C-alpha cells in the first residue's frame, strides 16, 4: 500500500512539471533560451536535454547538501552548484558536437542564470529528500524539453517546411519563422492557445500565461 502511494506521488511530481506547471508556457520562466535556439526540433531537443541534465543534477546535489549549507549563503552555494554542472555540459557539448556548439554555445553557458533552475533548488530541493527532488527536476526538465521541441517543431514546419529534418513541402513557406522574429510570434501564439484551452475547458484565470514575467 505504502509503496503504491509513493509511486503515484512521484508520478504526480513528474507530471506536474510537464503539464500543470510547465516552466515555459505556464510559469513564463526562463524564456530567453526557449525562443532563441529553437529554430528546429534538433536544436530544441539538444537545449532541452542540457537543461534536463543540469536541473536534475542540481536538484539532487542541493537536496543532498541541504542540511550542510548555511541558509545565509544558500544562494551563492546554489549558483556555484549550478555553474559546475553547466560547465560540465558546456565542455561535453564542445567536445562532442562542434556545429551545435557554434550555434548555441552562448545559450548553453547561460543556463547558469535560468530562473527556473535556481527557483526549483530554492523552492523544492532545499526542503525535500533526494528522490522527490530528483523527480521534481526530471519533471520540470521534461516539461522544458517538451515545450522546446514543440516550439522548434512549429517554427521548423512553418519556416522551413520540414519536421526534424524531413522535408514535407518544397522550399521554405514562411522564412520569417526561423528568423529571430518568428520565435516571438511562435511563443506568443502558443501561449495564447494554451490560455484559450485553459479558459474554454477548465475555466482558468484570464490573462494567464505565467506570473509577472521575471523570476
Amino acid at each position: 500500500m505504502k509503496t503504491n502511494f509513493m509511486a503515484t506521488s512521484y508520478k504526480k511530481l513528474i507530471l506536474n512539471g510537464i503539464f500543470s506547471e510547465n516552466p515555459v508556457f505556464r510559469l513564463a520562466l526562463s524564456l530567453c533560451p526557449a525562443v532563441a535556439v529553437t529554430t528546429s526540433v534538433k536544436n530544441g531537443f539538444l537545449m532541452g536535454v542540457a537543461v534536463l541534465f543540469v536541473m536534475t543534477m542540481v536538484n539532487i546535489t542541493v537536496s543532498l547538501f541541504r542540511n550542510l549549507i548555511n541558509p545565509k549563503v544558500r544562494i551563492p552555494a546554489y549558483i556555484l552548484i549550478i555553474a559546475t554542472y553547466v560547465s560540465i555540459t558546456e565542455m561535453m557539448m564542445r567536445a562532442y558536437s562542434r556545429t551545435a556548439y557554434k550555434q548555441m554555445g552562448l545559450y548553453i553557458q547561460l543556463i547558469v542564470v535560468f530562473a527556473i533552475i535556481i527557483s526549483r533548488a530554492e523552492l523544492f530541493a532545499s526542503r525535500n529528500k533526494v528522490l522527490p527532488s530528483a523527480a521534481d527536476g526530471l519533471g520540470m526538465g521534461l516539461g522544458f524539453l517538451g515545450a522546446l521541441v514543440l516550439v522548434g517543431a512549429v517554427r521548423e514546419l512553418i519556416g522551413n517546411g520540414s519536421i526534424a529534418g524531413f522535408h514535407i513541402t518544397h522550399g521554405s513557406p514562411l522564412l520569417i519563422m526561423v528568423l529571430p522574429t518568428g520565435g516571438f510570434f511562435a511563443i506568443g501564439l502558443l501561449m495564447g492557445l494554451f490560455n484559450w484551452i485553459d479558459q474554454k475547458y477548465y475555466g482558468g484565470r484570464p490573462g494567464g500565461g505565467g506570473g509577472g514575467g521575471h523570476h
Partner: protein
Amino acid sequence: MLKDLFTIFIASAVINNFVFTRYLGLCIFFGVSKKMETALGMSMTFTAVMVISAALSWLVYRLVMLPLHIEFLRIVLFIGIVAGFVQFADTMLKKLNPTLYYKLGIYLVLITTNCIILAVPLLNADNNYNFLQSLTLGLGSGAGFSLALIIMASIRERLELANVPKPFQGMPIAFIVTGLIALAFLGFSGLITI
C-alpha cells in the same frame, strides 16, 4: 581603431540587439516594460553595470584566468564578479546617495542573475576583444537594451487601453508586439558589414 569601435557599438546596439535578435534579458524586458518610469531607471542601471562588469571581467580574464589556464572556470568566475560588484554597488549607493538608491536599488537586486549581464563578459572572452573593444561592447549592448525597453514601455502604455482578445491578454500579446518590433529591427541588418 575608432572605426572598429564604432562598428562594434552599432552592431551590438541595433544589428545584434540583445533583446530582438539574441533573445537575452527577456525576463527583465517583459517584467519592467509596463511603465516608462521603471523602464528608464532600469535601462540606466543596466547600462552602467554592463560597462563596469565588462571592464572588471576583462581584467580578471586577461590577468588571472589566461595566465593560469583556468578558462574553463569562466562561468563561475564571471558570475562571481558580477554578483560581487552588484553587492558592492548596492552598499556604496546606499551610503553615498540614498535618494538614488531608493530609485534604483530594487533593480540592482534583479541584476545579479540576469543573462544579459553575464552575456557581455562571455561574448568578450569568445571574441578575444581588447580592453576598449570590451568596454564598447558593454556600452553598445546597454544602449541597445535601453532602446528596446523604452520602445516597449511606450507601446505597452498604449496597449493597456487596447481591446485585446481574452486568451492573448498579458504575456502573449507582449510577445507578439516584441515580434513586430523585431521585424522592424531586421531592417538594420544590412546597415554595416561586420
